[in-house]
């Protein structure tokens, strides 16, 4: 490897350039999930991707993770092309990712033990993380013995313990009830603020996106959607998520971004209605 000091291309934790993802449909046609996506996420930035249903949000995240490779275009992470799984990223899934046959502590330490860390060491690190997420008394439980919120916390600890430079989050809190969700968002922000990690956060909830992010990226209506807008969120940090929705800056930003997102949402809705009409 060249030791050349190419500072510029390494600037971005995640960089998608002209990424298109298409799938062949059973009918022999081509389905475009996303088209010509350009996305740049600097280290330490919190970027949310918001879009209507079916706009390919998860496809973008999966490409950044290396779980999907783009049909056209290039995915880079810290200047290096991503081939296979992106080793500098952790992924928080919308669904429950815990292995049901492992205890909480074994789940949390999984990333470390698989990397060859000794079990004792991995467990002590996992204990530290369990304490951080408030689960230190649940280390020996199995996932099914935990509540949804506790499972999410376990998943957070599991994703963070490997100390990734990038966190990819696919609507991680959407399955939680509203109160638990706000608490989790607050905790996430606290963890993130100390960490300097880049976050790519997917949500369909604009409130959540604005409250958490440095930047909100809006995707157009699918299929074959692309980035239609990008908004800088300059609400000062640290933010108090419980009161942020009354903040005048928040309200102004929300109005502005919603004005754009609304168009895409209604497009999606109309397409869905038209398709339903075709079927009927």
């Amino acid at each position, binding site marked *: 490897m060249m030791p050349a000091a190419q500072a510029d291309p390494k600037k971005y934790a995640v960089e998608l350039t002209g990424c298109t993802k298409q799938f062949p449909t059973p009918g022999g046609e081509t389905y475009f999930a996303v088209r010509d996506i350009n996305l740049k996420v600097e280290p330490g930035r919190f970027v949310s991707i918001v879009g209507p249903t079916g706009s390919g949000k998860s496809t973008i995240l999966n490409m950044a*993770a290396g*779980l999907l490779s783009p049909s056209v275009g290039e995915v880079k992470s810290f200047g290096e092309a991503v081939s296979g*799984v*992106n*080793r500098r*990223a*952790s*992924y928080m*899934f919308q*669904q*429950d*990712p815990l*292995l*049901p*046959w*492992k*205890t909480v502590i074994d789940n949390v330490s*999984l*990333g470390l033990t*698989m*990397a060859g860390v000794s079990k004792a060491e991995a467990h002590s690190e996992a204990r530290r993380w369990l304490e951080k997420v408030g689960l230190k008394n649940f280390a020996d439980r*199995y*996932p*099914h*013995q935990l509540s949804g919120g506790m499972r999410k916390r376990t998943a957070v600890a*599991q994703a963070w313990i*490997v100390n990734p430079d990038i966190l990819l989050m696919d609507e991680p809190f959407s399955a939680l009830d509203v109160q638990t969700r706000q608490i989790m968002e607050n905790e996430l922000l606290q963890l993130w603020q100390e960490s300097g990690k880049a976050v790519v956060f997917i949500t369909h909830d604009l409130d959540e996106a604005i409250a958490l992010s440095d930047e909100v990226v809006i995707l157009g209506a699918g299929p074959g959607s692309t980035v239609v807008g990008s908004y800088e969120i300059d609400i000062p940090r640290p933010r108090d998520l419980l009161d942020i929705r009354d903040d005048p800056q928040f309200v102004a930003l929300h109005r502005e971004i919603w004005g754009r997102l609304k168009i895409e949402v209604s497009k999606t809705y109309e397409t869905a209605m038209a398709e339903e009409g075709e079927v009927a």
Partner: protein
Amino acid sequence: MTLVGSKKNGLSSALDAGGPRRRRGRGDISPLAMRTAQLILTAAVLGAWELSVRTGIVDEFFFPLPSDIFQTVWLWVSSGFVFPHLWITMQEAILAFLVGAAAGLLLGFVLARVRFLERLLDPFLQMFNALPRVVLAPIFLLWFGLGIWSKVAFGFTLVFFIVFFNTLEGVKSVDRVLVDNARMLGASEKQLLRHVFIPSALTWIFSSLHISVGFAITGAVVGEYLGASAGVGYAIAQAQGVFDTKGVFAGMFILMIVVLIIDLLVNRLERHLLRWRPAQSS
């Protein structure tokens, strides 16, 4: 005597997998009372049988007296006559189970991971599975002789397919998210197998363990029945050959008890290995 009792036991513990048995809500009978009722039922059925044979309503030749059957059982057990036969049958069943399960697991994993092989072999596996296995017994007798290996081969064909199909399904039905998550956490292909695929398939295999263990024993006994020089199936066939219905019933009874004990052990093992699973609520 514990027949009816332990049968019920196995059934109810299969229903509420894991955890100490709790007493159920209102209107329920205590376990002790239930046990007593089961004993009474057993006594009533056996008593009615005994009585109808003694009064000549039922022909003793076809339905020997229960007391005679238990006497024969006692004779077989106390004289030690049945134990070598049981031992042979168990050897055959255990070997059939181990070899069948190992082969089923291996092929299941390979086919689940290699799509090409699965599509290639699928029709052949379906064909063999469609074959009524009993028709293989004569050919196995010719190939492997009267000894235990013809029975092992026969039991193998029964166990293999159950374990194979369950493994295949178990590996294929692994939650995509679990796989992706493990990969994102840095799992190699080998680690994926160890941490995700094997445990996931094990749940499927264990849920079929009762059936495959039962089939291993069935395979051994049926194989012996069709041609052997030892084993419980052979002992039953011998008794039948001399119109000793008491012996046939005694053999049946002993087999039944043995299978129940094995089933109990399998239950224990399953409960231990699948302790991470939530208790199934109906």
